[in-house]
């Protein structure tokens, strides 16, 4: 499995769970993107990317980043309440004993980071997933 394939698998998986991740009655529906958000989009979104995928073990663990972006508050502080809601929902997707089994690989929740300001007036929280795939 390549990094691109893994990112596609995770983005598709989260996208299928969009109603639970962003909340079904939220007026501003969030979106899931691979790597970068689409031009002109403003609102909550999740961007999925990958660290370099290494292929030198029969069963290899690589890292997928799931970045949860939420627009900053008028005071330019992170909207930690909303970030917490979305982050918890994303983690729940990948926090079973083995993680989620998608497209022939296991994706398991590994870590979550601190809210970090981004260029588009959002704060994002980075969630790392361990992607275990085979190389034989």
């Amino acid at each position, binding site marked *: *499995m390549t990094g691109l394939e893994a990112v596609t698998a995770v983005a598709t998986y989260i996208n299928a769970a969009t109603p639970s991740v962003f909340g079904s009655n939220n007026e501003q529906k969030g979106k899931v993107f691979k790597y970068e958000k689409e031009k002109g989009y403003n609102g909550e979104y999740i961007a999925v990317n990958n660290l370099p995928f290494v292929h030198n073990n*029969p*069963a290899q663990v690589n890292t997928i980043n799931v970045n949860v972006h939420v627009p900053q508050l008028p005071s330019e502080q992170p909207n930690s309440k909303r970030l917490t809601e979305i982050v918890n929902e994303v983690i729940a997707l990948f926090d079973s004993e*083995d993680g989620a*089994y998608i497209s*022939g690989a296991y994706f398991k929740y590994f870590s979550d980071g601190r809210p970090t300001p981004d260029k588009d007036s959002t704060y994002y929280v980075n969630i790392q997933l361990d992607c*275990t*795939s*085979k190389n*034989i």
Partner: protein
Amino acid sequence: MSKTAAYGVSAVTFTPTGGSAISFQAIVKDSLQFNDQAGSQQEIEVEDMEGPYAILQTSAGTRGFTMDTYDMTGAVYSSLYAQIGKRPTGAVSITTKALDDIPAMTFAWTKMQVTVTRAGTLGKSGFPNFHLEFRELTTTNQQGQEQSGHTVTPVESNGGGGSGGNGG
């Protein structure tokens, strides 16, 4: 065509002779290790030959595995606790996980001896665990003849394929 390797552990069950099955919980990551050992042998050398005159087997090989579990509550603990320091025998099976085109497989033994001990530190930076050593015992049929007590089969929902017996 699926690959033929085995990956991960999804379940380990032990059915003591005359008892009910225990399915182990909280298996320590990467703790299940096969540790088969070849039997030892003695080489008989003679003065007028370069190679060994004969090679005699002096002890049988052993087959088995070791495993650790953190489970300190519930049915598994109480089952294991009663066995600390003892060596119960019974049937054992390991089920592995599917990974892409590597199928889940079941490693099954009809008779193994288990040595149960507790290990580890009861502290703030880790958990104590049960250490289990499984050793295969010879299986005999009704005529008293030795037969294979170990099989490895892919976990396949249907289809007549693959009952790849391995052992003997």
